[in-house]
């Protein structure tokens, strides 16, 4: 045996320094133009490397080197309460001030552009000028340093100061943005200022956590969980309060061509136009009153842990949402009838205000609901959670993300609020992205998660079932060259059961002969299947109309059910809500499935197929079931897709898409429903987001970098499933519990 190689610490750090500098050069290249020409092949590289800007990147490399070198010294501070929120809050604010839009209609509307415009505008308020000039950066730096000091040195007073300053900073940012928008009369959809405010709120949380933390809560997550779980439901109510204040006091409620009207302006505008009394009263006092009352009741319910008040707040929130919706419907409809400033009709020309108010009421109601349904005190719940999980995972449950009582449900409620009330305020572009990218792929990822995540079968031909669903729909509505018999001719929504059934059969047909194959072989066969379906679609001219796709448009969905008549048209929002219904139904069904006998059988097969067989699981049948369920979900997405786009062709079903769905599931965290959804949402959103941020040619590279970073730092995915987390952390990580056994027992 040769002696272990001795490493010289100096050469070690030299190596590390060189790697860091090289990495920073790579990032510099990534950030620069990816261009070249026959005349100047090196253009991109010279632009990236031989310019002063490279110094910035090299400096970053040195910082990285220092961080890595002194990591052991840094680590003890990182688990201090508040570090996580502080860093994420700081990064959020930074992102808001670099990447986000701050005023639609000013150039590319990013922060820098707006700031330049502000500095070139004379008569704007000095505070605004200062904010966009230097104040925003100084505030961020000062607050960050103060909070960091407070955390490192444990100075509580400093933490309170930092929290106070953050609040001031958030207000200043808000005022500055508002004054720009009003000064320039912008029709503003930008989110920068809101993201900045959220960032500062997160920093405030960090500071408060630091100020309140004691030895008992030495670890950050424990402290955060304590703060979040102090009064279940209260965080949602507070969030609702903030959103509601913004909505009622300053957000735009009505914005046709030439003006932005806040709630009171809207009332002025519709005075004497015969607006329905309810809407009039809402705009004058009812809205504010509802807001005040529900907030008070919700806060009281959460603070006092009072069930009855909680239910009252929940009911109040629900009623208020309905009243708000009626109001904005009424005045937008009236505006269309009266052609107020070329307004176009119901649900059109609305600003964010009404939707924010809905969101606020929803959050407050949800807070009340959580307060009403949360059981026991925090301490008990934590103790219970710790008792049940501490051995299993080797870490106290209270240190796990969102394990505080009500925290998980608060997160879900927040997600629902965003899903319901954010899309109407988004621009048309983002609405269509939401529907045809994010939404559809979320549905596909949920379906594939059953196959890949739960049953552990690698399916690389998943998009084939999506294609089958789409073509089945096209056939049933009569858009293909071969027509269905007249009794089978139907509208798209009625096609759902047929398409789902056909995909289920297709799943069985593909699965039955192939599921006996293992791992790689199955992947290859499914990959082949996916391509076969696409190639058949291209070549079976008489049936599918070949590469041109269906020759007449697949009609949009319609519902005629008794008194209910809904017709889907070109408005993406309608599709979004339809998709939401699909996703919710599928989610509810799958959640039950996950915890059912079948779900447990999948888990067992994934872990050890022979043992699963030995415990009496019909492994083949159960795997086939996963395949069929995944396929039918994909088919459902196919129906939606076909009737939403109207025209499609085989190019929509290329191999690339199958691989992308697999990537989404893996990225989000295999086997975890929230993970699959988050993964799909994030990775479909990212390319669209990057459109504004980097040259088109660079987009794939940045996405690749994100995925790579993810796989290095969070190999389990965004939101890993519990079991997978154990798998990846390894049992050693889990076994921080000492398991020493007296020698006499000797086991």
């Amino acid at each position, binding site marked *: 045996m040769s002696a272990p190689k001795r490493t010289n610490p100096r050469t070690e750090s030299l190596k590390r320094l060189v790697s860091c500098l090289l990495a920073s050069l790579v990032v510099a290249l990534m950030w620069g133009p990816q261009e070249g020409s026959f005349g100047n092949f090196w253009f991109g590289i010279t632009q990236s490397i031989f310019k002063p800007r490279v110094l910035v990147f090299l400096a970053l490399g040195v910082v990285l080197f220092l961080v890595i070198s002194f990591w052991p010294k840094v680590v003890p501070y990182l688990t201090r309460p508040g570090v996580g929120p502080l860093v994420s809050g700081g990064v959020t604010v930074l992102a808001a001030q670099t990447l986000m839009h701050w005023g639609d209609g000013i150039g590319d509307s990013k922060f820098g552009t707006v700031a330049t415009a502000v500095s070139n505008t004379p008569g704007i308020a000095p505070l605004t000028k200062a904010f966009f000039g230097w104040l925003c950066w100084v505030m961020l730096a000062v607050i960050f340093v103060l909070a960091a000091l407070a955390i490192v040195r444990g100075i509580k007073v400093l933490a309170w100061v930092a929290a106070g300053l953050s609040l001031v900073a958030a207000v200043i940012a808000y005022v500055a943005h508002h004054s720009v928008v009003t000064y320039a009369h912008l029709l503003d959809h930008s989110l920068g200022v809101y993201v900045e405010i959220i960032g500062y709120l997160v920093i405030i949380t960090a500071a408060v956590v630091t100020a309140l933390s004691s030895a008992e809560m030495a670890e950050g997550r424990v402290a955060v969980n304590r703060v979040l779980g102090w009064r279940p439901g209260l965080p949602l109510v507070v969030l609702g309060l903030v959103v509601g204040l913004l909505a009622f006091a300053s957000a735009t409620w009505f914005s046709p061509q030439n003006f932005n009207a806040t709630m009171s302006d809207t009332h002025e505008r519709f005075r004497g136009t015969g607006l329905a009394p309810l809407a009039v009263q809402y705009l004058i006092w009812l809205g504010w009153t509802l807001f005040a009352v529900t907030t008070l009741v919700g806060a009281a319910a959460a603070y006092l842990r009072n069930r009855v008040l909680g239910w009252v707040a929940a009911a109040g929130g629900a009623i208020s949402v309905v009243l708000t919706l009626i109001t904005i419907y009424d005045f937008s409809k009236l505006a269309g009838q009266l052609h107020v400033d070329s307004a176009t009709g119901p649900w059109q020309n609305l600003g964010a205000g009404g939707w924010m108010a809905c969101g606020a009421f929803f959050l407050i109601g949800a807070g009340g609901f959580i307060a009403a349904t949360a059981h026991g005190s925090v301490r008990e719940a934590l103790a219970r959670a710790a008792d*049940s*999980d501490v*051995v*299993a995972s080797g870490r106290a449950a209270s240190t796990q993300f969102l394990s505080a009582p009500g925290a998980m449900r608060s997160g879900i409620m927040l997600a629902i609020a965003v899903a319901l009330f954010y899309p109407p305020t988004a621009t048309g572009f983002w609405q269509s992205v939401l529907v045809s990218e994010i939404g559809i792929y979320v549905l596909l990822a949920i379906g594939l998660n059953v196959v890949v995540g739960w049953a552990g079968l690698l399916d690389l031909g998943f998009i084939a079932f999506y294609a089958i669903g789409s073509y089945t729909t096209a056939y049933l509505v009569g858009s293909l060259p071969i027509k269905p018999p007249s009794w089978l001719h139907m509208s798209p929504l009625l096609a759902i059961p047929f398409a789902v059934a056909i995909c289920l059969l297709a799943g069985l047909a593909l699965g039955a002969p192939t599921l006996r194959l293992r791992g790689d072989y199955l992947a290859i066969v499914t990959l082949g299947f996916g391509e076969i379906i696409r190639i058949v679609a291209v070549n079976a001219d008489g049936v599918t109309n070949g590469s041109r796709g269906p020759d007449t448009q697949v009609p949009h969905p319609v519902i005629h059910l008794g008194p209910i008549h809904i017709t889907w048209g070109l408005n993406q929002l309608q599709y979004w809500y339809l998709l939401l219904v699909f996703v919710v139904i599928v989610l509810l069904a799958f959640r039950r499935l996950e915890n059912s*006998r079948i779900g*447990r*059988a999948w*888990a*067992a097969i994934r*872990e*050890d197929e*022979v*043992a*699963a*067989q*030995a*415990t*009496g*699981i*019909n*492994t083949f049948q159960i795997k086939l079931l996963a395949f069929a369920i995944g396929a039918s979900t994909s088919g459902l997405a196919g129906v939606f897709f076909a009737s939403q786009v109207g025209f499609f062709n085989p190019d929509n079903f290329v191999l690339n898409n199958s691989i992308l769905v697999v990537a989404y599931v893996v990225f989000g965290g295999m086997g975890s429903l929230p993970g699959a959804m988050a993964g799909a949402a994030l990775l479909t959103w990212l390319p669209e987001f990057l459109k504004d941020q980097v040259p088109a040619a660079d987009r794939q590279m940045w996405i690749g970098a994100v995925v790579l970073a993810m796989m290095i730092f969070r190999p389990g995915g965004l939101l890993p499933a519990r*079991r997978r987390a*154990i*798998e990846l952390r390894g*049992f050693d990580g*889990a*076994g921080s*519990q000492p*398991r020493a056994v007296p020698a006499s027992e*000797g*086991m």
Partner: protein
Amino acid sequence: MTVLLSVEDIEVRYGAIKALKGVSFEVNEGEVVALLGANGAGKTTTQKTVSGMMRPSLGQIVYDGYRIDGIPPHELITLGICHVPEGRRVFPRMTVNENLEMGAFRFKRPDAAVFEHVLELFPRLRERIKQPAGTLSGGEQQMLAIGRALMGKPRLLLLDEPSMGLAPLIVKQIFDIVRGINSEGVTVLLVEQNASQALALADRGYVLETGEIVLTGTGAELLADDRVRAAYLGEEIAS
């Protein structure tokens, strides 16, 4: 004494390899029967064939009066044939509790009384009930594997080398527990390399050699047999 399991002249192949070349034996109700043999003799193959994981190319298996060869394992388990496969094979990422629940998969819900009984047999499992099975020691995993099979309420328990890789003291504990399980009326077909312990426990035994039964007798007879002593107990042949 009624015959519970009778294996009649079965031949089992892995492709071209004949792993069993006409093996016959019987297990009576309430007995412990040991199958001995060197590595590669075909013991595991025999058990897998009995539990339905493999099907014989010739011969038949009769259990409780019915012919069962070719019936898949998830159906055989409903007849009470529970198999503890070679090498323990617990579900490593599931907790001890979940592993035991999986053992009762054939029932709508696990039988609480059986669950309690298993934890009484293996108190160590109770202490580790919420721990992932992969973090258990080898001996504990073996206990878990046996406990999991018991959750399926076996009538015939197939144990494949329960002593593999365990310290003598633990082997003794496990064999004591197997004896206890047997005394509650469960018939046991035991595959072992550890001949002396297995034969001390077994009512009868069979010795397999390259796919054929070469010796049979009661536990005591086999324990006294020179060939067995030479081959499995590592003793010099006296004569």
